[in-house]
């Protein structure tokens, strides 16, 4: 004789599985083989692509993984992550120009600035969920954009910061090919950090919060504080990507803070597969490569094609590129868990 009454505080069942760390359930050799293959591709990349495009892929991969940490593993869709990517880009650029420190130090300063900015914004945003969370993050990102636009003495407005140096103990990194290998360790460290977070006790709590926040609270977990911590960590990782992007392009333009940049990050995650972590790498590689190819061949409506592909992936491969592959792996090795 259970009630048909559904009080609003009775938690609802979580959403459908998203291929969460499905590869983590595959046998050890599969995982090591994937890791080795991934590293091999990362080391080869600037030999097969224009090195500048390869650097962009690295930065966007990190950005996407940061967004997926929130979207896929905490259940929060940020539509304002350009604020952290762009803020870090500006801070990295300013530090590199004015302090003459090695570029990884400038990038670290940028990422820390992004994390600091994420504290007050996250504090207010995590009290909302779903579309309201997305709106709050978007609204704050727009504020950051307008501040950057008005504060010309620092950001140089439309012109952007020009001549961002690539200092690294006097090494000559002007060639994009060599810069790629200088940037790679930072990106790998960021990806390793994201992997560690997802596979930590903290990450386990995040998944619980994503699937059933009321249950998590009844277990004694302060849900808002966990979400805020995830938000700040995500902003830091997005900041690492944004800082490297600034060094890679040697300039910082206002569009690093534009809402379309936030949107592109979400698209990359969806393309790669929400809640897969590594999907962001695939999504970034596909989207950045495609955009470069389209603009190189003089195609005008780049957004039309990328948008079309996005729609196709959403309709045909709902788990995204990585998620679809992971689902196959899961079907092959269904029960193994580690």
């Amino acid at each position: 004789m259970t009630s048909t009454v559904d009080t609003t505080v009775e938690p609802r069942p979580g959403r459908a599985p998203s291929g969460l760390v499905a590869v983590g359930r595959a046998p050890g050799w599969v995982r090591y083989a994937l890791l080795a293959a991934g590293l091999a591709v990362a080391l080869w990349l600037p030999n097969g692509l224009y090195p500048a495009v390869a650097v962009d892929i690295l930065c966007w991969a990190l950005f996407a993984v940061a967004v997926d940490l929130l979207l896929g593993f905490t259940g929060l869709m940020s539509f304002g992550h350009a604020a952290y990517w762009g803020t870090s880009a500006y801070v990295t650029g300013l530090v590199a120009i004015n302090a003459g420190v090695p570029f990884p130090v400038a990038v670290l300063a940028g990422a820390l600035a992004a994390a600091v900015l994420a504290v007050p914004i996250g504090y207010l945003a995590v009290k909302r969920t779903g579309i309201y969370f997305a709106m709050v993050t978007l609204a704050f990102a727009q504020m950051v954009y307008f501040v950057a636009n008005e504060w010309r003495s620092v950001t140089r407005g439309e012109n952007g910061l020009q001549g961002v140096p690539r200092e690294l103990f006097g090494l000559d990194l002007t060639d994009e090919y060599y810069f790629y290998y200088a940037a790679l360790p930072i990106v790998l460290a960021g990806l390793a950090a994201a992997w560690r977070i997802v596979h930590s006790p903290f990450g386990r709590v995040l998944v619980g919060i994503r699937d059933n926040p009321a249950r998590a609270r009844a277990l004694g977990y302060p849900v808002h504080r966990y979400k805020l911590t995830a938000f700040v960590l995500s902003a830091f990782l997005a900041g690492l990507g944004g800082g490297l992007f600034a060094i890679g392009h040697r300039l910082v333009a206002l569009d690093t803070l534009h809402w379309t940049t936030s949107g592109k990050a979400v698209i990359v995650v969806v393309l790669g597969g929400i809640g897969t972590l590594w999907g962001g790498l695939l999504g970034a590689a596909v989207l950045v490569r495609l955009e470069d190819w389209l603009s190189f061949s003089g195609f005008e409506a780049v957004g039309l094609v990328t948008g079309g592909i996005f729609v196709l992936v959403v309709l045909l491969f709902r788990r995204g590129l990585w998620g679809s592959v992971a689902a196959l792996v899961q079907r092959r090795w269904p029960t193994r868990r580690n």
Partner: protein
Amino acid sequence: MTGQAVLSVRGLTRDFRGFRAVDGVDLDIAPESVHALVGPNGAGKTTLFNLLTGFLRPSGGRIELAGRDVTGLPPEQVARLGVARSFQITSLFPQLSAREHVELALQSPSGLGWRFWRSAKLMRRYAERADELLAMVGLADLAEAPADALAYGRKRALELAIALALDPKVLLLDEPTAGMGLEDVDRTVELIAWVRRGRTVVLVEHNMSVVGRLADRVTVLQAGKVLVEGPYEQVRADERVITAYLGSADVSGSH
């Protein structure tokens, strides 16, 4: 009695858009007792639980836990003070395994949940205790199964294991035997009889034979108000209770 009660409630009220679901409830739960809350559908039992655990804010009244005012505290803080609850509508983490659920509950007071730089393998230190608890509720063989894949009765059992993992002073169980077969009901009753030692249990239950076997005291709620309170035998025989249930077969205690 307020002085010695573990949980003491005065004038507790909750309105939903003008509808009063809980209406001036006074309640004292004696330490280490099993206290049953019964009443017809919609009497306000679950709402009362939600008020006691911070999931709803009272519109009026006061809640004390061991003499401390906990009115309006958020759920995670109430949980940290040693109050665990199960949910009437089964409430689990669909993608996590049964063992992971219990590990999460065991880990909760330790602060391990903040270690984002450590491996989740650290949680294996709880695996042994988790398996013990799962065995207690009859889920030993299903430790690896995702919660999604468990049958309904098994999910109820997992709810109980999670609540036990928190090792609470006060355990609030919202219809722990609902939807279970007779065998599972018996096991659950035995289990509650076992875990009540050293604890206080508040139990919402429609099955009067379960109430009879477990409860020291019974409070009958009707339309948000306390109708009767007393020992099981006395409440069972009360005219007003029988009228409230309209002679429902449940009240006679037969099954």
